[in-house]
Every structure is written in structure tokens, then in C-alpha cells.
């Protein structure tokens, strides 16, 4: 699967800019004032500044260094040092295919983004980064699901049969939470957690705290397995 979930849609509000990495691709993802979302190579063609440090003005992303403005198609349309100049259309950072679906921002660095199918009625809860590899994280999640009867009935369903999306049923055996794994970076795993819209606020808080316990456990396992240096 080359389309990756890189964040929750609600964590990128209008005028928000964030950074994400998929493999070696370092990208800036931003949302215009009217809500249009874009994902670009994280490097301003002018002097190499990370565009994820930029600011959103209306329907443009401007670079933090010299304020070059890029429109939603990544075309540079304004260079403040030369206000009268029409910038050449060749000035544009590389762009990636990005779509927003089911509360998730999906990016493909090598083609058109095609989001995975997810169960209905899920809402974004949080994104959390663990200092461990993907399989340690997935194991920790599965075993923690067995031991929290208040939140889960213990069944873990591997939706794509490739451990990239897990769904954990709630005590009634129906839709509980969905956990999406982002392609791991060196020594860390990012998960995006979605929860069924029937949970109460108190239950959502409990799930958020459960995620933190799972992270502590996964990182403990990782440290003691000596696969990597102890996480600092």
C-alpha cells in the first residue's frame, strides 16, 4: 500500500501547516483558509527553507524565510522582494497526491492517493508516536485489548490482513476503535486512533489514556528486547 495515513483531518485546521515523513519524503501539509488541503515536498525552491515552517494567507502558503507565496497548485505567484514581477511558472515545489476521507489525511508519494475502506461512524481521537517498531506496537495493542474489558471485548481484527489497520471491538462486540499505522520511520511508529461515535466523553478519555499505557508498555518491551538503544 503506497497511500499512507499521515494525520487526523481535525488536527489540521484551516491555516494549519504540518510536517510528515513517508520513507525519505519530507513533506509540508497545509490547509488553506477555505479548507483546501495540499501536500508538498518540504523544501522551498528559493533557498531550501522547510515549507512546514511557512504561514497560510488566504489560499496561499508563504515561505517563512522570504515570504514567497505559493497557491494551492504549488505555483509561486508572489515574490515580495519583487512585487511587480510575475514569477516564472517553473517555480514550484514537488507535489504529492493527498485526500481527506473518514477523518484521515491520506498521502501517496508515488501516485494517486486511494484511501483504505474503513467502518462507518468513526471519529478521529488522536495521533500518537511510539518509540518502537511496528510489530512491537501491534503486539502491545493486541495484548492490551485483551486486558481491558471495560473498553474492549478482546477481539482484534486485522482489516487489511497486513497489520496496517486494526479494529478493536467494544464490549458489545460491535465497532469500537480503529487504529491506523503509518509507515514506520526509523525506530518509531505513528498510529492514528479513530473511535466509534457512540462513545461518551468519559470513555473517549479512557481510550486516550489506554493508548498512553499501551505506548509505555510497547516502549518497555522495545527497550528490554535490546533491538535498539534504550529510548531517551
Amino acid at each position, binding site marked *: 500500500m503506497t497511500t499512507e495515513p499521515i*494525520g*487526523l483531518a481535525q*488536527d*489540521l*485546521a484551516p*491555516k*494549519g501547516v*504540518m*510536517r*510528515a*515523513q513517508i520513507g525519505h519524503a519530507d513533506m509540508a501539509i497545509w490547509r488553506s483558509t477555505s479548507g483546501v488541503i495540499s501536500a508538498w515536498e518540504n523544501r522551498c525552491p528559493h533557498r531550501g527553507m522547510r515549507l512546514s515552517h511557512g*504561514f*497560510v*494567507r*488566504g489560499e496561499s502558503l*508563504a515561505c*517563512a524565510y522570504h*515570504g514567497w*507565496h505559493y497557491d494551492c497548485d504549488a505555483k509561486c505567484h*508572489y515574490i515580495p522582494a519583487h*512585487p511587480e514581477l510575475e514569477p516564472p511558472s517553473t517555480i514550484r515545489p514537488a507535489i504529492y497526491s493527498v485526500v481527506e476521507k473518514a477523518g484521515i489525511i491520506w498521502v501517496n508519494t508515488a501516485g494517486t492517493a486511494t484511501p483504505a475502506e474503513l467502518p462507518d461512524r468513526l471519529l478521529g*481521537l*488522536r*495521533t500518537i*508516536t511510539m518509540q518502537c517498531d511496528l510489530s512491537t506496537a501491534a503486539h502491545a495493542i493486541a495484548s492490551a485489548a485483551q486486558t481491558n474489558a471495560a473498553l474492549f471485548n478482546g477481539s482484534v481484527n486485522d482489516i487489511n490482513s497486513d497489520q496496517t489497520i486494526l479494529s478493536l471491538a467494544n464490549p458489545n462486540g460491535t465497532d469500537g476503535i480503529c487504529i491506523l499505522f503509518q509507515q514506520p520511520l526509523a525506530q518509531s511508529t*505513528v498510529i492514528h486512533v479513530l473511535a466509534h461515535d457512540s462513545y461518551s*466523553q468519559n470513555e*473517549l*478519555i479512557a481510550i*486516550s*489514556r489506554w493508548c*498512553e499505557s499501551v505506548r509505555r508498555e510497547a516502549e518497555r518491551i522495545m527497550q528490554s528486547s535490546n533491538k535498539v538503544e534504550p529510548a*531517551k
Partner: protein
Amino acid sequence: MSITLYNYVLSGNCYKVRLLANLLNIKYETVAIDFHPGKEHQSEPLLKLNPAGTLPILVANGQVFTETQAMLVWLAQQHDPSCSWWPINNANQLAAVVQWLGFSSRLSATIGELRLHSMLNNTINIDSAQHGAKICLRELESHLTEQRIIGQQWLTGDQPTIADVACFPYTALSPDAGIEHDEYPLIRGWLHALRSLDNFLTMPGIHELHELGSTIRDKT
């Protein structure tokens, strides 16, 4: 009323006081102290004011404060008739504010120290500061997640308080210390909300948002 802040422009703790004073429109004088390279905060005249040899120092109507948190309380209590920045009429919220003021010291002791190390080569225990910084940021991220679940944008409610002001600087400055905000989406949103407040004040390492310049730009 006379208020004098003994100030160092690169200090996150001094910035807390400048930031709140700006947000509340309070006039004050500054005296620049040559913290680096001069180590003036440890010179005799400054030690007479603050034997601890730290900045900031605030002298307000003759009273000397050497703890940032006390300065924030004093400024808010004196200058915020709405009692929203220092919510004395709400016991639960007031205690939560003090809780986060305490937390802000942990940010200074971890991220603040790491930042001085990365920028000015101060000697510190890097491993323990990095570990402590991560614990702090994760705690803050989790708290903001829970606040979002109950529909609140700020640390202790639906209005910013001095707790937000106290925790903002070193959280925002963590990239100076090599700790990026990429892992912390809720922290990012909270920082953005604080930077969007009227009368927000920048410091080196925390740039202006520039978002509103569009009107200027559209005219040209």
C-alpha cells in the same frame, strides 16, 4: 504604578512576563541584563536584588519578585478585572492553573536547559533533560487531547489563563533545543491559538504568524 523588568531577550522565563504584560496591555520598563556572554545576572548588583542569580527579576511598586509564576499572578491580579487569566472565583480552575504553573517549571528544567545547551553550549545532563522533555510534551499533548474531548481549547478551560502563558514559551521554543513539534498535533494547534491572540508578542525563535498581512498584500 512603576514596573521594571530586569530582562534578557533570549530568556524564555523573561518572555513569559513580557508576553502576559503585552496581552494585558500593561506598561512596563525593561533593563537589559547581559546574561550572555557577560553573566551579569551573577554580578553583585544583581545578586543584591536576587541572591539566586537568576532572571527575570520584576520590581513592581518597590516589591521585588524573583519567581516568574509570582510575577504572572501579580500582573494578572492587578490588571485583569475580568478575572479570566487568574480565575480566583473558581476553586477547581484556580487549582488547575497552579498545577500547570508547577508544570511550567518542569518545562524550563528540561527544554529550557536543553535549549541553553544547544544554543550557548552550557554543560548539562543531556540524556536526562531529553527524557524529561519528552515526558513533559507527551503529558501536555495528552491533556490537550482530553481538553478537546470535553470541548475546551485551553489548558484549564475555554479561556486562556496565566497557565497557558507560563507553559507556552518553552513548549514553543523546543525546536531551538532540537525537539520538533511534528509528533504533537494538539500542541501545535494550541501554540497556533496562542500566537493568534490579540496583542501576542514574539521572541527570537517564535516568529510572527504573518497570516493577516493579506490585506496589505491585496492592496498592492
